[in-house]
């Protein structure tokens, strides 16, 4: 039976370390939910996942699976299934034995094991490989075996630690949708770790963004994109990432590169210094006849879109604009940009969003 997972003020400080790997994490993953943990490397996302698995100690706080406090329960008694980044298949066992391993330990009857393994193999298109050893499989097939090993368990929670990062780009996109569909079908609570924000946005019911062991924001992908809590989340989610402009607070707006961007007075009142960070998504920064100037340094033609990279005339801020026109500017040109939709963040501290 699937269960919810709850982190209650969980911290982890490695012995001898000064900076906690995970700091005061409070997070609830609902029954049947697909939650993605995302963040740059070293942000504590894998560590948090491994804490749920029981592979990593907890210095402080509690972890619940369902109503059960598992903080001090051994990994083997937590009834969770994990998919590892490098699959960690048992090399001396066949595909079928790999999947049956956990069930044998649970003393599930033989016929039941055979039935579940067959079912999982069918679901994952592995039926003809059941008797093969992992070394005779391709990367994608190995990945599916690792998934199968988790599925047959029918566990409380699935934990997936970057399961797609060893696949090539095309297979990754394909497998991404398969995993998301599979999860919907099985309805098992899933925590999925990735450093890839595209994976996070496409797969998760909700996405939790971590940085330096601290949870920045948990929300649906849409809200994360539209209403980032701070400048870090704003730049981390979206590709190319959001433009962040250091601007000086002046009367009625924020000034950068000789232009004043009008901002409401109430917003500016929340600024904690004489600077603010103005955020504009590249797709909201269009080339225009007038407006702030930008010196073009690079033009990327991607077919559907063209991204124009440049700097403000004072050279302080780097900008990326999306150009929809048929003629794109050339490197060295000076163009005007027109910010359509802007975000404002405080310039210091947590860089929280104030607009």
């Amino acid at each position, binding site marked *: 039976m699937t269960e919810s997972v709850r982190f209650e003020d969980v911290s982890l400080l490695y012995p001898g370390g000064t900076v906690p790997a995970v700091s005061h994490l409070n997070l609830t993953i609902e029954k049947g939910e697909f939650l993605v943990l995302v963040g740059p490397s070293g942000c504590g996302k894998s560590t948090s996942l491994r804490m749920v*698995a*029981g*592979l990593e100690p907890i210095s402080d706080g509690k972890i619940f699976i369902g109503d059960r406090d598992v903080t001090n329960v*051994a*990994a*083997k*008694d*937590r*009834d*969770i*299934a*994990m998919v*590892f980044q*490098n*699959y*960690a*298949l*048992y*090399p*001396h066992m066949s595909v079928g034995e790999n999947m049956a*391993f*956990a069930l044998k*330990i*649970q003393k599930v009857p033989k016929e039941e094991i055979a039935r579940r393994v067959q079912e999982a193999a069918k679901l994952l298109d592995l039926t003809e490989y059941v008797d093969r*050893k*992992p*070394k*005779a*499989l391709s*990367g994608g097939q*190995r990945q599916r075996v690792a998934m199968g*090993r988790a599925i047959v*368990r029918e566990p409380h929670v699935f*934990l997936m630690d970057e399961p797609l990062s*060893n696949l090539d780009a095309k297979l990754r996109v394909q497998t991404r949708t398969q995993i998301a569909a599979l999860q919907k079908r099985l309805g098992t609570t899933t925590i999925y770790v990735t450093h890839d924000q595209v994976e996070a946005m496409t797969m998760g019911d909700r996405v939790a963004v971590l940085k330096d062991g601290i949870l920045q924001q948990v929300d649906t992908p849409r809200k994360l994109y539209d209403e980032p809590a701070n400048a870090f989340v704003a730049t981390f989610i979206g590709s190319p990432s959001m433009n962040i402009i250091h601007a000086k607070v002046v009367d009625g707006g924020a000034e950068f590169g000789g232009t004043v961007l009008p901002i409401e007075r109430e917003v500016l009142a929340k600024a904690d210094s004489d600077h603010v960070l103005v955020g504009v998504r590249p797709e909201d920064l269009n080339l225009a006849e007038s407006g702030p100037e930008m010196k073009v340094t690079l033009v990327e033609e991607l077919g559907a879109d063209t991204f124009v990279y440049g700097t403000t005339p004072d050279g302080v801020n780097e900008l990326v604009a999306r150009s929809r026109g048929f003629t794109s500017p050339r490197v060295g040109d000076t163009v005007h940009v027109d910010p359509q939709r802007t975000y404002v963040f405080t310039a210091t501290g947590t860089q929280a969003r104030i607009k």
Partner: protein
Amino acid sequence: MSVEASEIVILPGPELPEEKSGIKESARRKLSSPWAVVVVVFITVIWTIPTVGLLVTSFRPAADAQNTGWWTFFRNPAVTFSNYAEVITGGTTMGTGIMPYFFNSFAIAIPAAIFPLILASMAAYAIAWVPFKGAVWIFFGIFALQVVPLQMALLPLLQMFNLGWSIGDIPIFPDLNKPGSQQSLLAGTYIPLWIAHTMFALPLAIFLLHNFMAQLPRDLMEAARVDGAGHFLIFRKIVLPLSIPAIASFAIFQFLWVWNDLLVAITFAGGTPDVAPITSYLATIKGSYGAQLHLITAGAFIAIIVPLIVFFSLQRFFVRGLLAGSVKG
């Protein structure tokens, strides 16, 4: 006979995917140059000549073997099987013959190879994969024990088997003397030999197996833990099957070492025919019957057969790439 043993000491690594380094490649290229082949063939021939001499002598009639060198055989070939017959049956001068001793050697060597493997594999797993304080120091301690020469431990061990051993009033090893006699209960049994060989083998066995097991991927152990396996299951179902190359190597090494051992055998088994191994018998042929070259060589060849069989039959366990497909590098 020790030639085979020294070739086995190099343990194959667990063969992780990323181990396909350039060093291995360049070593292979260097070793396959024609000059290297010539040198290797030359050394092999030189190395084998004494054994060939032994083999030839064992088939020569007694008088020939006593009076002329084995190489004269090729000018004056005379073949007889009577040397073997005499050594095996005992004939007129050789008492019981070689067979009881031959079986004693098995009775000593097989358990003396299995016991240390069982203990060492468990100890190696514990040191490598069970996190506990002081594991590193225990490992260093065991490693350091390898410098203690076997010869130094012989007499204290003998005393322990005969008189027991206690620290103050606390008995560590009981006094096993039969009441009212000076005969230890262990005398005339294989037990002291098994214990001695096991003890002498353990440091090296733990060291080698630990180094092998510690290289197995951590993710495998974690996957097994998440799958619900405790330490004992992980050891039995994951670590042992994957450590077969190391275990087979050490089994061969230890079996050959015990099979060829004379010193430990004569110390703990004495000359008693009901426990003494084949090496002890070969020594007595030489000692009590003068230089009976034809018999010694025949006996030696009977003794050599077993190490050869063991080596070739266990060799197939040196499989490479056992870990292939497990974790992506």
